[in-house]
């Protein structure tokens, strides 16, 4: 994407979600209370992580067609996705400490996250163990496509088949269509979009940096 407008939009949306998220009205729910505001800071991490991983998948598919530079892009977007996943995990852990009483529980969604992060760590290990760039591009692309499908199965399909402690699942009070009221919805969507734009920005900076340093080496 060219131009500065989308970077500015990303910053404005994230700033808006931080300020309005702390000052805005939220519904009073038992157990959740004021921690419901974590919706603006925790959940967008997962949305933008999935967005980054999807972009990474698209570049991996293009890398299979021997498109130049696609592999670097796939890897950098996956790394940004990993960073967002780490942030999502940390914000979730702080929230869980105050709502569930523990930093870590064996909730299906937490397991899904842990496995997703392990899968992408394996992807980075695979990338580092191959020297030849053309071979690296192909092996990493094949693994990334497999990884993405398993991630979707793990975070999208399996949790729906079991109960979760997460708000909105299995009789927990929380963020379903009744609770996510009209005050919260615009801030939440702004945060999601803002973080996706910021993530894209981080990735594009890293891609430019890496491709410049590759040019210098060769």
């Amino acid at each position, binding site marked *: 994407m060219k131009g500065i407008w989308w970077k500015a939009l990303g910053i404005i949306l994230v700033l808006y979600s931080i300020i309005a998220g702390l000052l805005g009205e939220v519904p009073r729910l038992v157990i959740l209370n004021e921690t419901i505001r974590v919706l603006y800071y925790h959940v967008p991490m997962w949305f933008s992580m999935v967005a980054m991983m999807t972009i990474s998948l698209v570049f991996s598919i293009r890398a299979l067609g021997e498109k130049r530079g696609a592999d670097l892009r796939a890897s950098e977007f996956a790394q940004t996705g990993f960073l967002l996943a780490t942030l999502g995990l940390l914000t979730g852990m702080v929230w869980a400490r105050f709502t569930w009483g523990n930093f870590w529980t064996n909730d299906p969604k937490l397991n899904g996250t842990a496995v997703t992060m392990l899968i992408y760590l394996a992807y980075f290990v*695979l990338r580092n163990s191959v020297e030849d760039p053309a071979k690296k591009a*192909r092996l990493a692309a094949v693994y990334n496509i*497999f990884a993405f499908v*398993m991630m979707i199965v793990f975070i999208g399909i399996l949790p729906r*088949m079991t109960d979760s402690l997460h708000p909105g699942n299995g009789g927990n009070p929380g963020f379903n269509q009744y609770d996510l009221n009209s005050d919260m919805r615009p801030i939440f969507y702004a945060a999601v979009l803002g973080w996706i734009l910021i993530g894209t920005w981080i990735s594009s900076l890293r891609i430019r940096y890496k491709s410049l340093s590759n040019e210098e080496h060769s």
Partner: protein
Amino acid sequence: MKAIFRVVQLNFQLEWSERRSYFSILIYVLSTVYLSNLVFNEILSPESWNAFFWVIFLFAAVQAAYRSFYFEADQRFLLYYGWVKPEHLILGKIIYNFFYLLAVALFTSGFFGFLMGFPIASPGAFITVLTLASLGFSSILTLVAAISAKAGNNPALPAILSIPLLYPQILTLSKLSIRSLTGFSWEINAQLLIVLALLALVSLLLSFLLFPYLWRD
């Protein structure tokens, strides 16, 4: 079809000529099962039986399938190259590994049961779960073996790459198999069985579609 069958046959002949790979898996299973018998010096609850069994089987399966492209990376590669299509090769390897893993699974459960007791309430359901597990495992592990062979046969790589990919299956499997240990109802568990079969099919399809890209060099 004929070509796929030839690949399966050739694989079996080549592996049989070097029997030590079969024996190494055999000894691996024997020693780990015996180890868990020594550590757990008592009758296991069905839950721990289940957990131990799947962990042992998982590592045996990773070991067994790891060898499926071990030699192909250098010499045998050229032999196959002009002779067989990549689609046929991967299907042949997956079928071969499916039977291999099923044999390993049956042997592991047999020996495990011999030492630790057989708390299996519905053997039919348990064998169905083992069959579906072997199918899903062989699809993923064969492709991962191909990736790690191409990446230079680093011995740690197959386990690192395959275990996270196998998690969705293992979780579903262990949930199903604990029910087959304590009493199984086909109606209630039909949904989970379908999920498991679909997971195996998706892995099979992905391996089939992606392998040709690994193959050309």
